[in-house]
């Protein structure tokens, strides 16, 4: 990505951070082997949301939760079939950071979840001008795998996961 002087969204709306309804223990990043040991522990939407809400927006020093890009209501977990769906809402419909945000969510969940989960990540319907194209890219496992072999892109993802911006 080229360095940019103008932000995609110069005036994001920041939402008040929701407090925890209950004390769900936050699982830290670990290897798949360790994750599989806890494989049979149940997961719910709240726990998944806990993992992704503090991912940083690439452009602004705010979390995806604070910008209302992700919300617990848009996380679906079927623990019986091991399917997770996350829908995120970019702050503006033409957001070119959408794939980076989606990729960051995917990487975070990849690192913390047991392997048994299949994760679908999409932009919320109607929230992006290239919705179909973005969704297809985010859910093509080969495209994702190749992208994550790109050290520059991985570095940007890690910045978001570490609470920093990419700009």
């Amino acid at each position: 990505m080229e360095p940019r002087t103008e932000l995609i969204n110069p005036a994001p709306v920041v939402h008040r951070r929701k407090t925890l309804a209950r004390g769900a223990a936050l699982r830290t990043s670990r290897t798949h082997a360790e994750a599989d040991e806890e494989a049979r522990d149940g997961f719910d939407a709240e726990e998944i949301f806990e993992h992704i809400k503090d991912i940083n927006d690439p452009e602004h020093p705010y979390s995806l939760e604070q910008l209302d890009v992700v919300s617990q209501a848009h996380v679906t977990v079927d623990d019986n079939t091991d399917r997770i769906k996350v829908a995120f809402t970019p702050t503006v419909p033409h957001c070119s950071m959408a794939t980076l945000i989606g990729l960051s969510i995917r990487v975070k969940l990849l690192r913390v979840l047991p392997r048994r989960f299949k994760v679908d990540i999409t932009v919320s319907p109607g929230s992006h001008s290239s919705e179909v194209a973005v969704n297809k890219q985010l859910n093509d496992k080969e495209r994702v795998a190749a992208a994550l072999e790109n050290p520059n892109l991985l570095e940007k993802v890690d910045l978001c996961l570490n609470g920093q911006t990419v700009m």
Partner: protein
Amino acid sequence: AMLSFLGRGRGGSGGGAVVEAAEAPIPSPDYLIRDHGGSDEKNSGKTSDGAADAAAGGSSPSVSLANGGALEVVAVATLAGHSDRVWCAAWEPHGRALATCSSDKTVRLWAPSAAAGGAWVTVAELDSVHSRTVRSVAWSPCGRLLATASFDGSTAVWVSEGGEWECAAVVEGHENEVKGCAWSPSGTLLATCGRDKSVWIWELQPGNDFECVAVLNGHTQDVKQVTWHPTEDVLLSVSYDNTIKVWEEDPGGDDWSCAQTVTAAEGGHSSTVWSVGFEPSGLRRAVTCSDDRTIATWTATGMQGMELSAAAKFPCGHDRAVLSVSWGKCGLIAAAGADNSVRVYGAAGDAAAGWHEVGTVAAAHYDDVNCVAWHPTQHDLLASCSDDGSVKVWSVRARVADAHAEAHGGGRDTP
């Protein structure tokens, strides 16, 4: 392209003008029982008694029977060694070894070892060439050369000299990740495809050199796989643009061009097409699979003007993308799923019934199954490989109880 309805097919002979077999029904494929490449017995009309073994998720996946199914899929070997996801598995054309490639940047060759009591061992490790994921591996028809396509943008060609494998050539040209490679039936042409939307054709020269003879543009997106017709120099490619393309050399012999594009409108797919393969004998039909959760078979005419006609399209029981298909000499189609499953399909004697699932391993691996490949000579063997880093070899055969009942004049499944 002409749509061909199920039950009718255009007989394509390999040796001359297209022969039109008016209203000829597609013959039912042979099912295998037990023996390797030997007695093929038709199991048409056999129905499931409804009992379905629950597929266990875990160390020893058992087999479940779909409606009308009659076959069991039994794990014969689990090959561990790769340290990252395994993308592709390909059998040496004479069945002497299995090649697999991985995100660990290596290629492994496996074979059963007499010294190890018949256990499968790694007989060669091809490394230190690719700097990124190796995505596809393909044997030349003679089994002497092995092509490996990598995300690093290159395709390496390996040759075995006196039992030692070495990299004989590296062809470069694609702008980014190479995703597929395939040899023409004569072994003189190597096709590659990749994310740069192009298909390249390379001609093998003396001394294991390669010369680029064509760069084929036409796909509007990432090209996932290429495969050649079993006997003709006709190339098929499938893509993220949801289409299948047929490529042929112009009559003058100077140029290659796209002879046909199959979209959803012609009975094709509505999402990324991941894989394409040909029926190895008989009618030489083609099969494709897609992110749209369907598998489609195609009749294909031979010689000039190859044309794909939709023969059948069926939802295949996968609830996620179908990543790979393989048509076996036993007549069955195997499919690898992003839902961790390996499924086998057959077409019953009654052609109107169409293709249906005859064998399933719902939890064949712990993660996505990226590739399935039928053994070229032992017709009941099937290889699969997965994101879980393992490779498995399966035997697909009639359930022992059925064979026993048949032998004793029964023929009904025991409940």
